């Protein structure tokens, strides 16, 4: 399919705009999307870190409370003569249970037996299997999360050693902070509607999530030894711990990373997600914030869509402008085209009138000059052809006349010769002289008339060459005969 020049220009321009515009749009989308994601990653990490601060404060305050309690003289001397549910010590403990924040505050002996507790159901229970007990007995203040074997309630256990006046560890004080106190501090206001949060322990087990079905699930698969340890410590008794698909985060926790951001593909939710995790101070807990990428992709897509729309409108406008402009610029070209067609069909001497003030006007001036010269040359050739034709006709007539006359003369000579030969020949001198004349005439005719006739004929070159060769032979041999007759005439003339 042939396209006009204007159509080709329009098509090329529009396609170029579309191609480059699409490339620009995709590039913008990529970089905007990348930038938006980078910003959101940073934001999510800051949110995670900031969200841990309040939890740290509460846990630290609780530890301070515990430290204050164990410094009281009632506690310090209690183990000198311990008694179950000692009234003075119990009063002391109740005093510190402000705002009903604690499930229980209790004192454990070195053997692990609970001697005093604000929750009477704890009294007589042995918690020597608890990690917090063993750590406190070793002199370390410990914060731990677990589900109570007695209460079957989740809580945060803050355990501190109880030292006597000699400084020896005589028992352990435990403050069990209600889980909801900590859970209420998890701030999800910075998340989108599709964002989620998880609070996990140092085994990666979820102790709190806005998606409740995640509670008591692990971030990733637990190896058998770890699972056994958790069961042994009775951290989450009667809970079936199933793995979620956040193994990458669990790895970071195991590597003791304090905070970070990960890009993951959540197979369960079938989403590309950003995860920010942060340790809660120095405590064995982590806060994990999760957001879906598509929330951020939307803004990048919006920007790219507007750009793409702009490209599309630009392409349409460009096409319109080019159509108008091209028609204006191509009009002189069409005039030139028509002019050249006239020249080629023999219509010389015509002129084109283009006044564009640019190269097209120069081109039209050159074409006009060319047309004048072609016309002049054509007229000259026609004159020459006419002249030459007249000359050839004249010459032809002359030659034909001469030839006819020559033929007449030859016939007359032949008659005369025959008559002379028979009546008046004076011997061989005359007879050989006749022969000589014959040959001379033949040579003359061949050289002047016949050769010319063949040259001027319309025969093919091949035929002309063949005939010329034969004529040359005739001329050559006739000349030989001529020489022989000359000698014979001379010989007989001398004998007379």
């Amino acid at each position, binding site marked *: 399919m042939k396209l006009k020049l204007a159509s080709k220009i329009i098509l090329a321009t529009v396609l170029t705009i579309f191609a480059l515009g699409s490339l620009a749009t995709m590039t913008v989308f990529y970089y905007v999307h990348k930038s938006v994601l980078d910003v959101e990653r940073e934001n999510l990490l800051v949110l995670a870190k900031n969200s841990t601060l309040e939890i740290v404060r509460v846990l630290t305050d609780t530890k301070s409370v515990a430290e204050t309690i164990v410094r009281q003289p009632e506690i310090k001397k209690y183990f000198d003569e311990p008694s179950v549910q000692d009234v003075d010590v119990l009063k002391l403990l109740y005093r510190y249970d402000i705002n009903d924040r604690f499930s229980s505050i209790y004192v454990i002996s070195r053997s692990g037996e609970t001697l005093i507790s604000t929750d009477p159901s704890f009294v007589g229970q042995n918690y020597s299997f608890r990690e917090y007990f063993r750590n406190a007995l070793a002199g370390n203040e410990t914060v731990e999360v677990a589900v109570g074997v007695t209460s079957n309630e989740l809580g945060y256990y803050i355990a501190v050693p109880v030292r006597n006046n000699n400084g020896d560890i005589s028992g352990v004080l435990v403050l069990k902070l209600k889980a909801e106190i900590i859970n209420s501090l998890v701030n999800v206001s910075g998340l989108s509607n599709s964002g989620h949060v998880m609070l996990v322990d140092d085994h990666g087990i979820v102790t709190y999530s806005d998606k409740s079905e995640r509670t008591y699930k692990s971030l990733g698969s637990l190896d058998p030894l770890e699972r056994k340890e958790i069961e042994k410590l009775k951290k989450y008794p009667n809970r079936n711990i199933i793995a979620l698909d956040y193994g990458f985060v669990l790895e970071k926790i195991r590597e003791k990373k304090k905070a970070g951001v990960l890009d993951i593909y959540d197979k369960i939710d079938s989403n590309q997600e950003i995860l920010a995790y942060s340790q809660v101070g120095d405590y064995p807990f982590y806060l994990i914030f999760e957001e879906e990428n598509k929330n951020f992709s939307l803004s990048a897509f919006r920007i790219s869509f507007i750009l793409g729309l702009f490209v599309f409108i630009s392409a349409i406008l460009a096409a319109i402008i080019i159509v108008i402009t091209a028609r204006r610029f191509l009009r002189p070209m069409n005039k030139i085209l028509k002019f050249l067609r006239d020249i080629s069909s023999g219509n010389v001497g015509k002129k084109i009138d283009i006044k564009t003030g640019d190269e097209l006007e120069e081109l039209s001036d050159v074409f006009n000059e060319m047309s004048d010269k072609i016309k002049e040359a054509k007229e000259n050739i026609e004159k020459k052809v006419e002249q030459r034709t007249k000359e050839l006709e004249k010459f032809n007539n002359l030659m034909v006349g001469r030839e006819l006359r020559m033929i007449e003369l030859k016939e007359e000579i032949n008659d005369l010769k025959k008559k002379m030969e028979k009546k008046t020949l004076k011997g061989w001198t005359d007879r050989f002289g006749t*022969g000589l004349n*014959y040959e001379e005439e033949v040579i003359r*005719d061949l050289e002047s008339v016949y050769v010319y006739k063949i040259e001027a*004929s319309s025969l093919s070159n091949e*035929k002309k060459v063949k*005939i010329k060769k*034969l004529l040359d032979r*005739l001329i050559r041999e006739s000349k030989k005969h001529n020489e*022989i007759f000359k000698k014979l005439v001379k010989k007989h003339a001398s004998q007379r």
Partner: protein
Amino acid sequence: MQASDKQLIKYFRELYNIEKGARDLYNDFLAELRDEKEIVQIRKIRDDEEKHMKIVEQIIEIISSKS
């Protein structure tokens, strides 16, 4: 065949007649010559004229041919 070719053939037929006339003349010479040397020379010339007649016929054939 073009008219000019026909004209050419006519000229060469004239030439043929001239050559033929020459041949006949030389035949007459041969009938009367006594000198052996001259007989040989004229016979040669006569034979050449016969060849010339054939050459002219050949030329006419070339002109008349289509290719």
